[in-house]
């Protein structure tokens, strides 16, 4: 709390009673349906048994996780893939929203807006199928075009470097439309008169965007960026699981696919829970770290 005197605080609290009441249902819900199961995650520190007799084993499962010979590379892959995705796929929806805002005339805008979100609804099983078909060495459309143009066909899916780019771009294809929604909503609120004034002042397109649009959507951008950092260690299990193949395991095996292979498939729930806790802790550190930093620099954070 800011350094307000206790009596002022009490007065504020009393005045805020209606607000607390509005907040209460959500808090109660979370206490029951989120926190009780989270308490169940202490399974990570126990040996699991169907009969319900759990034995406390402390950090044993974490040790097993960290001591695997490929844990290092798995962790690295997770960080690299997540990092690439954030670097490319964070700005893209913003750029898309800006592009949409620049379109005069409703028809084109409406048409484009009604289709770009479509891929988001497809599951990764389907999308992986699409991209595998597209990028196959022999039969893929892209390679067929390349050979037609006289170039050599490229093994997009089996090359250890290019496969990561396939992840990034397939993710972008899937989500750019959907993710741009929030930014479009934020841009809507900008008073058109501000733009008009800027144009009269002689501001060009980019000047307008830089001075008006971007600052206006900055809070949204910062919020989304920081929140997404909470999921940094996820790197997209569904996508990786469906798009990976034996040839590129070493560069795309992420934490979740590794845990799936080792843990879940053998009923090793404690192990899987331990990995989940590990991911969560990192995510939490990232969120609070960036939040505090962002507040210091820009005055804005998640709250």
């Amino acid at each position, binding site marked *: *709390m800011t350094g307000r005197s206790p009596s002022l605080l009490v007065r504020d609290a009393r005045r805020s009673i209606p607000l607390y009441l509005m907040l209460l249902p959500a808090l109660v819900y979370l206490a029951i349906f*989120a926190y009780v199961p*989270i308490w169940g995650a202490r399974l990570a520190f126990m040996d699991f048994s169907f009969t319900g007799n759990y034995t406390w084993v402390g950090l044993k499962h974490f040790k097993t996780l960290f001591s695997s010979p490929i844990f290092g590379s798995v962790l690295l892959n997770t960080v690299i893939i997540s990092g690439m995705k954030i670097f490319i796929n964070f700005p893209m929806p913003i750029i898309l929203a800006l592009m949409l805002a620049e379109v005069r005339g409703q028809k*084109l805008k409406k048409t484009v807006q*009604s289709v770009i979100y479509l891929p988001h609804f497809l599951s990764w099983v389907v999308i992986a199928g699409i991209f595998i078909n597209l990028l196959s060495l022999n039969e893929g459309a892209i390679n067929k075009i390349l050979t037609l143009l006289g170039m050599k066909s490229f093994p997009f899916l089996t090359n250890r470097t290019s496969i990561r780019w396939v992840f990034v771009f397939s993710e972008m294809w899937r989500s750019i439309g959907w993710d741009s929604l929030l930014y479009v909503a934020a841009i809507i609120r900008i*008073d058109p008169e501000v733009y*008009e004034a800027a144009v009269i002042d002689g501001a060009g397109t980019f000047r307008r965007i830089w001075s008006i649009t971007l600052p206006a959507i900055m809070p949204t951008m910062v919020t989304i960026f920081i929140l997404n950092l909470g999921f940094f260690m996820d790197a997209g299990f569904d996508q990786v699981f469906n798009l990976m193949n034996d040839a590129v395991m070493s560069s795309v095996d992420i934490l979740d696919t590794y845990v799936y292979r080792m843990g879940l498939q053998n009923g090793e729930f404690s192990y899987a829970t331990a990995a989940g806790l590990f991911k969560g802790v990192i995510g939490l550190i990232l969120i609070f770290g960036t939040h505090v930093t962002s507040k210091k620099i820009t005055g804005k954070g998640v709250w």
Partner: protein
Amino acid sequence: MLRSVRRLSVGGYANRALLLILAFVTFFPIYNLVVLSLTGPKYIAAADGLSIYPKGPTLDTYGALLSTPKVLRGLANSVFITAAGVFVNMTLTTMAAYALSRTRLPGKRVFMVFIIITMIFEGGLIPDYLLMRKLHLLNNYLSVILYKAVNAYYLVIMIRFFEEVPISLIEAARIDGLSEARTLLSVVLPVSKAGVASVSLFYTVFHWNEYFRAMVYLTDPNKWPLQVILRQLIVGSDKASFLGALSYLKYETGAVQIDMKALKAGVIILAILPILMLYPILLKYFAKGALSGAVKE
């Protein structure tokens, strides 16, 4: 508005071109799936991701899917669960977001941390299941309706939107003697249409697509939502593609063949169709001028 500039700059054309390309690239795969779902059995094996029109067109695939009472019941279940779920979602989330968007709220930081932790940590399937069991909610629609009823991510987004409401409006409401609840309903919500619409859409899509928890919590198949039913039409790699689907569908006419590829495509389209129809309605809230009736600064 500046009506004098009719000609587009080069940048303007480039912009439109890029947008059109994006629209095409995102639209085509769905279109292709529709084509596959309408392709006849003789040509389906050769049909692939680049097919532009259905050869030997037939409605049999959709006929088979829609004539199964399971599918229709699944649809009804999905609509019910989604509607009830979103209602709960929006009520809880909007109220909480409004409260947390008021800067003067003592303890706000604590609440925010409380909420964000739930975004990152999850107990997982087993603790969730055991909790539902303890609450005797297994096989009850409520277990699915209440699944992730408060999504921390969406909640924070909503708080952001509410924070952007001009203070002058809130103060005007205060002066007029409106209660907090009234302020939310009459002042804040109308002005945040786009944001509220977005979050509603997010929650709707979440409920509509949810299949795993529904399958696990609801042991009575009559309660299963559409996604669960449709997903089971696509059996795993254990048996050859044809087996499970037909027996599950019980398609009567022996002469008609439903091919797995067409079936899969049809299933996907059917699963996303209702949401697709919802989206244009949503776009209305994104029209400029959502700030109509606001106080002039």
